[in-house]
């Protein structure tokens, strides 16, 4: 084995660092990844608490409908609408409001709202993708993400969104937590839960639309839910769990970007696979730890009951 082979990963990593330092597209990708890596689990935590994990998937499919219609406007009707992302964002918010409306309409079957909205989103997507020229590389990017091609404008939008979300969470922290954990009690405290829900749903829609740029429609929910699923198992408090979820998510984004650059594989999928690996690792370590605890407990009990 040549010495170059041994140090090859190191050289490649150096290449990654150099690329980040020298190339604008890599800097944008890293910035997008870090911001989405922060936003997605932060918003995702509240989604998980409210047992609405499917909402991310539903909204991402509905956003795809908006993106496809945007493509149709640009490619076929030649309308100067700019980036289809804007229509995607409008659809994400519309989808979120539609889910809320359906959840209120089917009080006892709230989950029924998800398949209805996901079906509408998928059907519209299929229709408009076909009408606007079929399965192109743009559509592929929508499905699986295109973090390496994000524009400077996108960086501005996502930075602004991150700041707005942080400010809103800081200002309304208590109310957000109460509404998420116990809606009935929030009503008793005089919080207008419906108005509150309306705004949080809009933010959720916006974050999902932006996250699509990173990992794509098909993987966006994993970015919001999986780090939270892993953090839930090790978090000692609510804030601690949020922090761990963000750390897991950022680790996945950075490792995913690095590996995808070094090996030349799709970044979105790599990020999600790192997320899943962390979850698996947490589950396995937790399991081993609990087995060890049980064994320790058993042996100390045996010790106590041993005849003298």
């Amino acid at each position: 084995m040549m010495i170059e082979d041994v140090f090859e990963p190191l050289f490649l990593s150096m290449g990654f660092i150099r690329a980040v330092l020298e190339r604008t597209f890599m800097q944008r990708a890293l910035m997008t990844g870090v911001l989405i890596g922060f936003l997605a689990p932060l918003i995702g935590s509240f989604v998980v608490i409210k047992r609405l994990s499917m909402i991310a998937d539903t909204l991402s499919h509905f956003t795809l409908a908006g993106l496809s219609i945007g493509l149709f406007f640009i490619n076929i009707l030649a309308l100067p609408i700019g980036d289809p992302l804007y229509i995607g964002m409008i659809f994400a918010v519309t989808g979120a409001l539609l889910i809320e409306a359906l959840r209120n309409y089917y009080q006892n079957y709230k989950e029924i709202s998800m398949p209805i909205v996901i079906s509408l989103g998928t059907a519209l997507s299929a229709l408009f993708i076909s009408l606007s020229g079929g399965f192109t590389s743009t559509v592929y990017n929508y499905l699986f993400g295109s973090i390496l091609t994000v524009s400077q404008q996108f960086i501005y939008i996502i930075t602004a969104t991150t700041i707005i979300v942080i400010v809103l969470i800081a200002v309304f922290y208590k109310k957000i937590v109460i509404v998420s954990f116990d809606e009935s009690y929030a009503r008793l405290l005089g919080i207008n839960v419906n108005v509150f829900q309306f705004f949080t749903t809009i933010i959720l829609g916006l974050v999902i639309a932006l996250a699509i740029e990173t990992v794509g429609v098909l993987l966006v929910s994993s970015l919001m839910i999986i780090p939270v699923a892993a953090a839930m198992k090790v978090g000692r408090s609510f804030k601690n769990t949020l922090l761990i979820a963000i750390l897991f998510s950022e680790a996945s984004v950075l490792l995913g970007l690095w590996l995808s650059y070094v090996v030349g594989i799709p970044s979105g999928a790599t990020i999600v696979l790192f997320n899943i690996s962390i979850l698996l690792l947490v589950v396995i370590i937790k399991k081993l730890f609990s087995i060890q605890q049980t064994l320790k407990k058993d042996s100390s009990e045996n010790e106590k009951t041993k005849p003298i």
Partner: protein
Amino acid sequence: MRIKVDNLSFGYDYRTVLKNISFTLESGEFLVLVGNNGSGKSTLVKCLLGINRVPSNRIYIDDIDIHQYRQWINIGYVPQKFDDFNYEFPITVNEILTVSRLSKIDEEARLSLLDKIGILELQNENINSLSGGQLQRVFIARALMNNPKLLILDEPTVGVDSDSISEFYRLINNLNAEGVSIILITHDVKASKANFTKKLRMENGRLTETLDNEVTS
């Protein structure tokens, strides 16, 4: 806090659950509402909490019609089941209590409340690691975070072990002695050790028995 219920009838869809209910609760009183399952006790509580929308001029809180009443912060509520609360996601006792008071929290008052309820040592525990009795005390503490003038407890001792039940009644009696009005809903008043001042019995949505100033040991 004074509650006046005047000839209240209430139903869901076409089913009348409460029929011509009238009673008053004076400030500082301890009211026990007894009755079998399905007699309408929890429905009445939901009316008092403004969750069920009742007609005007039927419920008055501090002489204000419930439709105009805004000071809900004065009423603490401990629900029958904690199903509405998602207690599988990590959150500590302290974190729940902190978010349950929207206005500023006096650290000393918080610690003395935890001490009084007997959960001082549990404050940094995750609620998913608590027993039924401990969880119940956390929810009582939550209801007391805003210094309510009235505490409504719906079947608070269901699923709680007997030691915790005795401890619970000691706590509730003390709170009442400190001036907090109490409405306690239970299906078995004999088992309770409540020092109540008024007892109402409900059967099929009607008040069938009213006892005033009865004190049990």
